[in-house]
């Protein structure tokens, strides 16, 4: 059984339709990558899955149970969320922020218990344990992203929903995070729903040899679902962005795909991608 089943979903803000007829599934250990141009509804779709927004039509099931039957606490046991932007208000210790992921296990007058110990283990696994005692308002953007990811993992849920997790990161950090996600899917059997506007990201994940599906969102629909290399070589980018594209294999490496795109005959992405 799939962990997440989305069936014929439609959402609109007032009169403005964001998307309709969206259906897909995510299995444990599988990464589902939502790709599409800015404003295509990737983030909105994720917020529907997280119960932050209520779709006008359609059905979302988590573990076979309809979302409407979940309380916040129950859903937090199934799905954890890593936001794209996070507003930092108070200078908490970083370890405390990570430990907040245990909120669903916290009861009314519960002492801090073992939450902190658990948070430290996860931070150690992610290699950010040195940040533990720092005030999290002083962290860099990349460090914060790792902390938010750690917080989601501490939640011990079966699925991660990440909204543009690497949008503000440099190439190196991007690669680190994507590889980490691939590892998590593979070793922990996590289901991952991930949104991005960069076609190279799903390609990178596919290279890691994990079970990956890509959903191409465009014009209020999810027009294509499938393995990234297949979708991206089918020439459908031309229909969406009006550009030519081609998957390039890097010579000398096992399988490393990068997407090269040409617009008005200009060739640019390959050089960037190689760095």
């Amino acid at each position, binding site marked *: 059984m799939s962990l997440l089943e989305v069936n014929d979903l439609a959402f609109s803000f007032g009169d403005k339709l964001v998307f309709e007829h969206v259906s897909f599934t995510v299995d444990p250990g599988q990464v589902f990558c939502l790709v599409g141009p800015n404003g295509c509804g990737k983030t909105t779709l994720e917020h529907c899955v997280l119960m932050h927004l209520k779709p006008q039509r359609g059905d979302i099931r988590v573990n076979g149970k309809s979302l409407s039957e979940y309380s916040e606490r129950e859903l937090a046991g199934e799905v954890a*969320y890593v936001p794209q932007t*996070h507003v930092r208000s*108070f200078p908490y*210790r970083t370890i*405390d922020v990570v430990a*907040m992921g245990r909120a669903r296990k916290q009861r009314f*007058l519960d002492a801090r218990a073992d939450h902190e110990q658990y948070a430290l283990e996860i931070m150690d696994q992610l290699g950010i344990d040195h940040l533990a005692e720092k005030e999290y308002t002083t962290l860099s953007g990349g460090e914060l992203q790792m902390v938010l990811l750690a917080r989601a993992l501490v*939640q011990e849920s079966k699925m991660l929903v990440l909204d543009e997790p690497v949008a503000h990161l440099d190439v190196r950090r991007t690669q680190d995070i994507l590889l980490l996600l691939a590892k998590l899917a593979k070793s922990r059997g996590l289901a991952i729903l991930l949104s991005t506007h960069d076609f190279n990201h799903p390609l990178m994940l596919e290279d890691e040899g994990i079970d990956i599906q890509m959903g191409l969102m465009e014009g209020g629909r999810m027009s294509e679902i499938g393995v990234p290399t297949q979708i991206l070589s089918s020439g459908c980018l031309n229909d969406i962005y009006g550009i030519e594209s081609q998957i390039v294999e890097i010579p000398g490496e096992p399988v490393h795909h990068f997407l090269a795109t040409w617009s008005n005959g200009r060739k640019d992405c390959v050089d960037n991608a190689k760095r």
Partner: protein
Amino acid sequence: MKPNKAKWAAAIIAVVAVFLLSICVGRFPLSPDQVLQALLQRFFGIDFGITPDAIAIVADNRFPRALAGAVVGASLAASGCAFQGLFQNPLVSQGILGVSSGASFGAALSILIFSTTLFTPAFAFVFALLAVGLSFMVARMCGEVTSLMLVLGGMIISAIFAALLSFLKYVADPYNQLASIVFWNMGSLASLESAVLPYGFAVMIIGLVILLGTSWMLNVLSMGDREASSMGVSVKRARLAIVSGASLATAGAVSIAGTIGWVGLVIPHIARFIVGSDNRTLIPFSMLLGAAFMMLVDILCRTVTGSEIPLGILTSLIGGPFFIYLLRRYKGRGWK
């Protein structure tokens, strides 16, 4: 971890020391021995030959007054903390959100209706809740709730309730009711009524337990509504619980001691400078500081002259300049 333990120890010692000081000093000359003996004689029936007036001074005046000071101080500080955390706004406190004036109005109204003080905690609570709700609604009227709008909304609601209280004063019977109504906006521990104390205490303690129990939720809520709900916290219910706890604590304090300004604003900031922003430690630490501060100020109120000095005058006179000093020293640490 070590320095933290030292901070807690210092705060606890301060509370105990100020409490002891508070039952040992006063206009009535009693040595610390006599104070101890008076307490033992009253509560354990051991006869030290202390005179009844000395026993009444210690056991019926200083002791309940110190206790009330401690709980009122703790309540005001904790609820101030909760409001600041909830609205993520360093400028708010029960005074600025209209909670205090709402509670005062409710308390005064119950005196006018029932001519007994037994219902004041309940009325104070209902109107405290109403006031904070209205402040928030006014702030939300113009779309997004910004810090500025929240403070503005609070000021409006606070002013309305203050005016309503003045109106009650106008229609109140000057011979029988006025004095007790004037008391609500003065703020004092001088006129504690033995009959109301247990209710007031009960309301404050329920409020404090709620605030302590939900302090972790405050942390989670400060991550933003969506993140909080994805971490398993029902945002609406958590907010309601925290606002209720803070309103209960404030209402209980107002119903036994009237409106005492500044404590709810200054003490949480001072505590933030010392132990940081984690509400799980900040709230209990603020409670300790608030308790010590309030008892200390009250000692001054009742010993400096033969008459009572209104508490509010001293809380502002001491709290204001001390706050400026701390701001200077810590350069606003604790807030971004």
